[in-house]
């Protein structure tokens, strides 16, 4: 069913009785060509591009709960193409270009809003680093503008310019960055994939791999064995648990990241602001709530909730940047489990097991990557070769010395 204004008018005149479910609820078949594990943004996008772009057939997405119940429905919805390193920026720029055409392509309103992201700087060294990163972005076809204090003040006069412990010295503005309605991304890809014959199978947890010799022949699930020529794993925070079933240890730790929403307010913050002197970032949703977050809780966790010290820390940072925040009441807070990699960058790669492929290690940046990660993972699954923008995302890069460490933090996943 195609969505259009005409259709909406027709349905409103006939009591909205003609709408149909956006995807089927099929029973699993005995075997598929491609089985994707994980019905998050990445898994659904992978299935969609496999079917649409690469002519893949007999595809299933297996989701242990309901689609969109993982991190794709828990993130703070920021998309951006503002990385510095070669292995990363072409990939994120590719993702941004896919976002720019996504709604037309999917015929789905994902509320892609390129409202601009401003990374504040507070020291000379930060300004230098921002300039360098901005240049790297521009070289890769992205956009960046360096603002001075006056430029920032003109955009966001309510920031603390008066008595800040770390005065705002400027900011790097990435105008094409912004926010996207997160669940709509999962639903849009699910609908698009389903329309192209992909079976989306919910309440179907993968409990093991069927590996003979060094070849993966399918997966054991709570709904029985499902055979597959190729299996793609895309389970975000559960990466280590799932790959352990194939006997693999990953360069990944799972950590909890919290986020918060305030009560609805009148339009106040038009874009996305990130603090350079504390862990805090903020935007305002179209419903009016201030959406903000900060740091990880810092210890390994599989609990989809965090602890109070981080709430306090995030709110303190927020108050020091936007004093007016103190007047707003907090409505909700929640946590999601991040697959934090050892260098802060992801993996889209084959494993040493024939027919088993892995996409993960997205840390807190995987939402913005959803279209390109799906596209590149589908490319890998179909052709057995990495997409040209994802050649650096190898699982063995720590062995070969090709880490992609944007922050230069080393193998300490909670600092990336």
């Amino acid at each position, binding site marked *: 069913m195609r969505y259009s204004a005409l259709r909406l008018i027709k349905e409103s005149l006939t009591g909205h009785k003609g709408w149909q479910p956006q995807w089927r609820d099929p029973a699993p078949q005995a075997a598929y060509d491609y089985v994707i594990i994980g019905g998050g943004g990445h898994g659904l996008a992978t299935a969609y591009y496999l079917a649409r772009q690469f002519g893949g057939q007999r595809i299933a997405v297996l989701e242990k709960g309901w689609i969109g119940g993982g991190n794709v429905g828990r993130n703070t919805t920021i998309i951006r193409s503002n990385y510095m390193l070669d292995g990363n920026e072409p990939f994120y720029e590719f993702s941004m270009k896919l976002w720019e055409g996504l709604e037309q392509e999917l015929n789905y309103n994902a509320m892609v809003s390129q409202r601009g992201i401003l990374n504040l700087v507070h020291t000379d060294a930060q300004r230098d680093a921002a300039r360098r990163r901005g240049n790297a972005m521009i070289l890769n076809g992205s956009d960046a503008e360096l603002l001075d204090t006056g430029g920032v003040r003109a955009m966001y006069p309510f920031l603390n310019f008066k008595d800040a412990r770390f005065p705002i010295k400027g900011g790097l503005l990435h105008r094409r960055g912004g926010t996207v309605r997160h669940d709509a991304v999962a639903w849009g890809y699910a609908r698009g994939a389903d329309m192209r014959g992909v079976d989306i199978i919910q309440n179907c947890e993968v409990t093991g791999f069927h590996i003979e010799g060094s070849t993966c022949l399918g997966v054991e699930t709570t709904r029985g064995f499902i055979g597959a020529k190729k299996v793609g794993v895309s389970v975000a925070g559960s990466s280590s*648990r799932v790959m352990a079933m194939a006997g693999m*240890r990953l360069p990944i*730790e799972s950590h909890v990241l919290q986020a918060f929403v305030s009560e609805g307010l009148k339009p106040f913050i038009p874009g996305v602001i990130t603090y350079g002197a504390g862990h805090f970032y903020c935007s305002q949703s179209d419903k009016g709530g201030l959406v903000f977050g900060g740091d990880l809780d810092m*210890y390994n*966790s599989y*609990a989809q909730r965090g602890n109070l010290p981080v709430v306090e820390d995030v709110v303190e940072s927020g108050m020091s940047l936007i004093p007016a925040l103190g007047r707003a009441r907090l409505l909700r807070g929640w946590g999601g489990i991040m697959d934090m990699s050892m260098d802060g960058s992801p993996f889209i790669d084959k494993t040493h097991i024939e027919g088993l492929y892995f996409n993960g290690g997205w840390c807190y940046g995987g939402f913005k990557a959803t279209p390109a990660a799906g596209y590149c993972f589908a490319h890998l699954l179909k052709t057995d070769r990495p997409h040209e923008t994802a050649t650096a995302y190898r699982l063995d890069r720590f*062995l070969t010395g090709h880490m992609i460490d944007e922050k230069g933090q080393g193998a300490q*996943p*909670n600092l990336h």
Partner: protein
Amino acid sequence: MIINHPLLGPRDAQEFTYLGDASLMNRPDWQAEGAAKAFHDYLYLRDNPAGEHRELWFHEQGDRSWLVVTRNTVTHEILRVELARDVALAEPALEAAQ
């Protein structure tokens, strides 16, 4: 979370910084054959279990001791706290005894 420090009693986890899996105490032998691979595994690969996890915490804002905390990563419940020093000293003794 409250960490029951073996010397100081219950302390707020806020006083500590977190390093990670306690296997980081067992540094490979750099002269052994295959040391490069062993160091790769030591530095970069993790079990990352959902459930019991032995991990290193540093009492940065306290007595600056390293602790090995056994904690459930699903419930955040702390099951056991030991001085890392004791663990490090006990392990070779254990190996020797075997």
